[in-house]
């Protein structure tokens, strides 16, 4: 495998992949389920996902040898099943993400532009980035995500005058555990997408560090999500967040630093959009890896047709924005989770049956 990334780059890829997707609309469903206690949900999911990654990847010492054997040479039945499940997961994730991005742009930024034009233009940009390869995606992601992370960390200071701590009350209610459990269930499938690291093991400079890189990435994403959700609840309040289709965007609209900087939200959206492009590009790259796994040349050959076809499907599969939101919030919670668990199980079985 010629393309190599470091464990820090993997951590940034994971963090970007998990955070940029969840911040668009998902806080609405999470807050609807667990109210003012939603800020605890990413912490609970982080603990669960770290355990999942730790169990699936196994001992560090054996990972280096296994990463050289996994998906190289003749395919075993388990590897074929792994690739099919992986392709299925990231094809649906690509369709969902493209539609989410296009719906957001069509609603907030370019309301008069036809959705199919937005889709094709977005898909072409994504194909260009994805066909540049994993190293380029990792470097682009790293630069953009650091800027996005810094912006999120600065947000509490920007909306300091709007924060109402009373919105967090009551902190401990009788429905705390049930609410957090329901919310965690909705978030789990989104964070489970971090399982993409399994196919990138052969691309690691130091494969045994992949596990730590992945857990660090999940930790960064969950920390930023905790900050964002806490700000949404404290600034907007539970009632507004539960009815807002884009609560994060509504949050940054509340920034009121001076009289003349009244459209600072556009600046922050400009920081976020490239990170989301990088996420969708990684979706497509991973899908392409499934299709061309094991071949030594022409890695990008299916990228244009598959990217365009799935881009068109993202328009046709969802008849309207509401169906996409329903799918992302509720259907994905089961669909995504089942496929992710299957991928994890197949990887563990392949690892167990691998000759040491």
């Amino acid at each position, binding site marked *: 495998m010629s393309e190599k990334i470091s464990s820090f780059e993997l951590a940034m890829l994971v963090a970007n992949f998990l955070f940029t997707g969840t911040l668009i609309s998902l806080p609405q469903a999470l807050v609807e389920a667990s109210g003012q206690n939603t800020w605890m949900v990413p912490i609970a999911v982080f603990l669960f996902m770290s355990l999942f990654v730790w169990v699936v990847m196994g001992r560090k010492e054996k990972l280096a040898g296994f990463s050289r054997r996994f998906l190289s040479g003749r395919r075993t039945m388990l590897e074929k099943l792994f690739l099919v499940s992986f392709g299925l997961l990231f094809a649906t994730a690509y369709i969902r993400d493209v539609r989410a991005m296009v719906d957001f742009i069509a609603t907030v930024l370019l309301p008069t532009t036809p959705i199919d*034009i937005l889709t094709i233009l977005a898909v072409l940009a994504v194909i260009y980035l994805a066909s540049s390869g994993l190293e380029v995606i990792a470097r682009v992601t790293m630069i953009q995500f650091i800027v996005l992370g810094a912006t999120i960390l600065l947000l509490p200071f920007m909306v300091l005058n709007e924060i109402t701590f009373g919105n967090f009350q009551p902190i401990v209610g009788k429905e705390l555990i049930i609410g957090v459990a329901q919310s965690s269930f*909705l978030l789990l499938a989104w964070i489970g997408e971090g399982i993409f690291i399994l196919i990138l093991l052969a691309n690691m400079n130091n494969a045994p560090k992949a596990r730590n890189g992945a857990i660090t990435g999940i930790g960064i994403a969950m920390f930023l999500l905790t900050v964002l959700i806490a700000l949404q609840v404290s600034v907007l309040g539970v009632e507004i967040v539960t009815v807002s289709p884009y609560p994060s965007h509504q949050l940054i609209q509340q920034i009121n630093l001076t009289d003349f900087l009244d459209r600072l939200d556009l600046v922050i959206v400009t920081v976020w959009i490239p990170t989301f492009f990088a996420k969708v590009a990684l979706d497509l790259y991973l899908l392409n890896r499934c299709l061309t796994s094991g071949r030594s040349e022409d890695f990008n050959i299916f990228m*244009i*047709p598959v990217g*365009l076809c799935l881009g068109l499907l993202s328009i046709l599969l969802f008849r309207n924005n509401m169906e996409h939101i329903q799918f992302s919030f*509720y259907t994905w919670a089961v669909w995504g989770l089942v496929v992710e668990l299957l991928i994890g199980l197949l990887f563990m079985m392949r690892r167990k049956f691998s000759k040491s």
Partner: protein
Amino acid sequence: MGTGTILVSVVLFIYLSKIYNSKPFNSKKRKMLYSFVLFTFGLSIVVTFQGNFGSLIHWMNLTIGAMVKMVVK
């Protein structure tokens, strides 16, 4: 959808011209033709069933999505 299809056609035209101009007929060219066939086949399925595709997600939302909604609400 019409404008989108025109844009896709332009991209496909560039893609095909790239295949046409690459000499000789090597394995790369063959694979590009395969991927072109894959895309046109996919596009024909998309266009044929475009009215029915929406019902797939609608059905998933009504079954899986509704069950999840019942649990979390």
